[in-house]
Each structure stands twice: as C-alpha cells, then as structure tokens.
C-alpha cells in the first residue's frame, strides 16, 4: 500500500434534512463516490435550526472528490436549491491516501 498523499477537495454541504435524497442524487450524478452524513444543529441567515422537530432538522454532508467535481456539485446545488432552502457550502483542501478511490 502506498503512503503517497494525493490532493483532493472536501466539499461540506450543510442543508435542511428534507433535501437529503436530492443532494445525494446530485452527488451520484456527478460521480462522487465518497461521502459521510451526520445530523447537526445550528444557525443559518434564515434563522436557527435547533432540530427539535422533524421539519427543523439539518444535515451535514462531507464529500471528498476531485476539485472539478466539487465545483460542479456546488454549482448544481446553488442553481437548483439555494433559492428556496437553507444551504451552506464550503471547500477545504485535503490530502488522502489511495487517491484512486475518490
């Protein structure tokens, strides 16, 4: 196994839980293969989402992929969902082992 580090992008999407199926469909459409999801609580410019109710839940999806794929996903999410849903996205540079897996 190689210990060589490969540069990748981590795209973090924080969004209403109601969007989860559609965001995941977007990831698959862009051929992203590696992501994790967790439930979070927090605040958006639209107000606090304290997760005390089903309609008020928030998820955080972390995707690790090629920078171009991360850009394409972010563009698609912005175009389709940003107007009507609470969505926050940010990018981080990460280095991974076994780069071919992403």
């Amino acid at each position: 196994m190689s210990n060589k580090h490969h540069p990748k992008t981590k795209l973090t999407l924080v969004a209403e839980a109601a969007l989860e199926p559609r965001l995941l469909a977007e990831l698959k459409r862009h051929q992203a293969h590696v992501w994790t999801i967790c439930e979070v609580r927090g605040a958006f410019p639209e107000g606090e989402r304290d997760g005390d109710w089903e309609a008020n839940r928030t998820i955080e999806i972390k995707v690790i992929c090629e920078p171009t794929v991360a850009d394409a996903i972010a563009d698609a999410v912005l175009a389709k969902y940003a107007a009507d849903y609470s969505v926050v996205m940010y990018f981080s540079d990460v280095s991974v082992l076994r780069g071919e897996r992403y």
Partner: protein
Amino acid sequence: MPAMLDVVVLFFALGVFARVVKSDLRLPEALYETLTIYLLLAIGLKGGLELSRQPLMDLLPQVLAVVILGALVPLVVTPLLRLAGLKPVDAAGLAAHYGSVSVVTFAVALTAVQQAGLPYESHAALWVAVMEAPGLVVGIVLARLALKRADAGGDSRIRWDLLAHEVLLGKSVLLLMGGLLIGAVAGDAGMAPIKAVFIDPFKGVLALFLLELGLVAGGQLGALKRHGIKLVLVGCALPPLLALAGATTGMLLGLQVGGVALLATLAASASYIAAPAALRVAVPQANTGLAIACALGVTFPFNLLLGIPLYLHLAPYFTQ
C-alpha cells in the same frame, strides 16, 4: 380535575411550561422517533383488530366519504386564508396542513371517547390512514397553481414520484396501514401475546409524546408573536368550522356518537409532521414556519383543551 380535561393534556402543558422557562429539558431524538413509531403502530393495530371482524366492502362508503372530506378541506380553507391576508402560496400551503390530519389529536380524542364511554366505530384508525394524504395532495396542487399564477415558481413541475413516495410511503401512512393489516390478519388470538406492549401502555406513551409536543409547541410562541394575532385567530377559528364538516359527514354516514366526535376531530386537526415534510419537498416556496406555528402552536393546543371536549359534547346532536 375537570371530567373533560384529560391527564395527557397536563403533560402537554408541562412541556410548554418547560420551553417557556427555558428549561434544559429535551427528549432524545431517538426516543421521540420511537414514540412516534409506537403510537402509529398501536393505533393501526387497534383499528386492525376491528377490521378482522367485519367485511371490508361494508367500509367502502366510509372510506370514500373521508377521502372526499379530506380533499375538500383545502378547497374551502385556502380562500378563507386568502381573506385573512395570507399570500396565495402560503394560504394553500397552510390549507394542506388542515387537509391532512394529526394522529396525536386523534389519539387524544380516542382516549377521551373511550373514557366517556361513548360507542364508536373501533376501526376509526382506518379513517386516519386514508385521510392523511388526499387533503395534503390537494393543498400542494393548489399551492403549485398559486405559484404558477404568480410566475414565481422557478421549476414549476411537481415531482409526483417524489411526492407520492413522501406521502404514501412516509412512515405515518406506512405504519398506520401496516398496523391495520397486521391487526386484521392476527385477530384477537394473534394480538394477545403483544397486547401488553401495544395496547395496555398506550396512554402512558401518549402522555410522554405530548410532553415532547409541548416542548416543540412552546418553541413556536416566538414565531406566533412574529406572525401576529391574526394567525392565532385563524388557528382557533378553523378547527370548529372544520369539525362541523366532519360531524356532518359522520351524521350522513350514520356513525355512532363517538365516531361522529372522532371524525369531527380528524377534520378539525392539522398535520404538523407529515405535511411540513411533504411541503418542503413539493412547494419549498410556501412558508412552512408559519404553517407549523399555526398547526402546532395554535390549532393543536386548541383542539386539546377546547376542541375535543366541544366535539364530544356536540356529537349527540349529529347522530340520527
């Protein structure tokens, strides 16, 4: 304690109080999920037991009538909400919540009917299951039409596949229908071994769930202040009006007095679990914050405190 004030209402009040005084009380999400699943299954199972005792075809007129009743609610409520000054898409969105039903409101009414010793159709859970979706779908269609008229829809197509999945295979309809089927197939003998879990502790679990609902409803008070007194008036005026439609339907169907009260309660109740979730998927432009504040912050406590006792009291006037 007043005869009509059920003990579970006090749990709701405790939850509201805890939230208002900013207590750190918070039910773990996993527990809340468990309670929801339990209540839906238990209500379904109880209704299913009764289904095993009678021919299904006899129930067809009832099923059709409650579907029509549910579907008509948003058509009546939307113009009323427009008159109250709501934007078209918000009016239809909120009307969708009233078109659907609140399972917990039904559960409280059911225990009240049983406690009062009123005769009722014990398959009433079937009404809940079939009444959950039609009004919700009609409300969503009205909201989409409103958007189309305002030309602010962005993507104005309804994703029917997503919506059908959300509404028909969402956990509430799935568990209610599943419980009904299991109860009907199992019958009394089959249910006996699980009765100690699903039938006997029902009211205790309901009380715990109402504590959680109280906490969430208490959290809506801020939103109510933002939306003003008009929303409170709407949330209090709609339930008795819709209950009247429910009771009249019950009378036409020749239901027993408890059945009339239950159908009135179902018509008067507003969904705050399934409807907001479906609305977020189908009409994200509709203000679900406003709808939840009205359905859960006003209508739910109204029905709990005043509505259900009122519907029980008036039901005898709607029996033949």
